[in-house]
């Protein structure tokens, strides 16, 4: 139970990951409550992505446990964890480059989870998944009547690829969505159009974890933030508490200088 008396949807307990002698993540403990937008910040190399990889099964943690809805998921295969409803985007975008954008979503829509809990209309027939895929893309800001949803994914600009990554997760009707730097590499106006999207997903009841470098934009949506430095948790709390924390400033700026936020 957390301070608000809610049962956490995700509990990370004493999680560590070592690569040989390098401690990428060291004894990190935190909880995410249902409906949270939980931000994870930290300088480059502070272990954010490794932490996500451990939670989603792409890496096996050296120590510690991950619980989802009270169920132990530590060390499960990535596809099993995604099947339970914990999905993630990749920092390095991984669309199916040779396929049209909408076909990229037909793949998650063909997954066992989408068939089971998806509730997308017409789970079975070939044509229907294509329609659902275009529906999802439209929600994500792909103009339905333009040619964009039908373009080969490899030819799309970064902004659309980021949305496609999100689409791949949304197609699974996730309970937890982990976004690994969705804002990075985007212009301010592109981010401005993504923020309402994140808010919309939150309002649909999806718990969101966001790894982010763009703090100003992150703090517009996040209600809790955790800061990592050198693989260790520095502080966790309300966005403003975290940003004012001396150790966070030190980790980012290495001094007491002003912090741009």
């Amino acid at each position: 139970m957390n301070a608000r008396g809610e049962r956490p949807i995700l509990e990370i307990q004493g999680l560590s990951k070592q690569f040989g002698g390098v401690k990428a993540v060291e004894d990190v403990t935190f909880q995410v409550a249902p409906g949270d937008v939980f931000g994870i910040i930290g300088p480059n190399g502070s272990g954010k992505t490794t932490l996500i990889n451990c939670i989603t099964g792409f890496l096996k943690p050296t120590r510690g446990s991950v619980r989802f809805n009270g169920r132990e998921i530590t060390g499960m295969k990535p596809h099993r964890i995604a099947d339970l409803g914990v999905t993630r985007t990749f920092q390095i975008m991984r669309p199916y480059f040779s396929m049209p954008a909408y076909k990229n979503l037909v793949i998650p829509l063909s997954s066992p989870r989408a068939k089971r809990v998806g509730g997308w209309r017409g789970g079975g027939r070939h044509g229907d998944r294509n329609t659902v895929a275009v529906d999802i893309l439209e929600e994500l800001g792909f103009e339905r009547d333009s040619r964009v949803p039908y373009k080969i994914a490899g030819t799309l600009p970064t902004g659309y690829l980021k949305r496609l990554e999100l689409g791949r997760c949304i197609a699974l009707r996730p309970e937890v969505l982990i976004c690994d730097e969705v804002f990075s590499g985007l212009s301010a106006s592109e981010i401005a159009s993504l923020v309402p999207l994140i808010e919309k997903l939150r309002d649909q009841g999806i718990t969101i974890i966001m790894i982010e470098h763009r703090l100003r934009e992150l703090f517009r949506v996040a209600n809790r933030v955790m800061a990592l430095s050198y693989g260790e948790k520095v502080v966790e709390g309300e966005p403003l508490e975290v940003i004012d924390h001396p150790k966070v400033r030190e980790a980012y700026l290495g001094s007491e200088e002003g912090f741009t936020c």
Partner: protein
Amino acid sequence: MAQARRKERIDRGIKVRSDSIYALSSWEEIAYLLGPRALLIGGFLLLPVVLLPSPYWSRVALSVCVVALLAVSFDFLANFVGLVSLGGAFFYGIGGYMAAVASTELGLPPVVAIPAGTVLGAAVCTLLLVPCLPLRGIYFAIITLMYPLFMTRLIEATEILGGTEGFRGITGFSSRWTEQYGLIVVTLAGVFALRRFLAEDAGLVIRAVKDNDQAVRASGINVTWTKAKAVFVAALFGCFAGAYYVHMYRNVGISSFALDLSIMPIAATVIGGSGTLVGPLIGALLLVPLSELLRDFGSLRIVVYALVLTGFVVLQSEGLMNFATRKYQQFERWVRV
């Protein structure tokens, strides 16, 4: 100074129109779409009739189908699943032995023994290959290359499955027509069925594994299981070829695991065009008769064969099918830069 020019490729109008529903608006466009397919299917179906006077060349036509099946299996695994298989001989041999056992030990007629050998053989191949499926890289190639060698030595050493003698007295086909058309029809149906399957959502998932397996994992799909299913499909093609062939020659031996059966299909795929599934069929249609004609050269056969292959790789590396498709669908012109 010479004017800088580049070649511009533009889709033919008829290609663009027949991509959509308008395809059905005129006979011309229907013919444009169906023509190449009809030519291929019709050509293959006519082979037994045309080659009727020569039993030898009739048999060669069936060898074409066998190599084509193995080549399609290779093309599918390499270019749609992302697994480079050097195991044509493995699929072929296992299918052949399974069918032989079904025929000689259980006394099943060809119409039962061939499908049984195909399905059981494919299941056995898949089970044996599953351990290397979670690995990426060249492991699959190495293992598939090793298995046929392993099987040969195993059979030699332990005298199982008839030892070096193999099995004889397998029930043959009732007539020459059955024998010829059985294989040709299944080969064609198999290729077109595979093309259709790859266009379906299940086929799309398989292709996605090749593009990007991490994203498939993150979509809650078991990649190893998906690959296993794909290997099973590919093995069905190879095992069918083996199962059919032993019924044609009415015997089976360790030569069913010969390396030729792994190499020839790859060559056919390269010549015909990788990633087209139909290309390997065309490649086999050229390569197998060529290889027969070269028998006159005696031991120089392999030299000539290798030269032809090298020539193809250097001069026409995209393969005949990709080249022909481009010519059929697009016209080219030089434009000034």
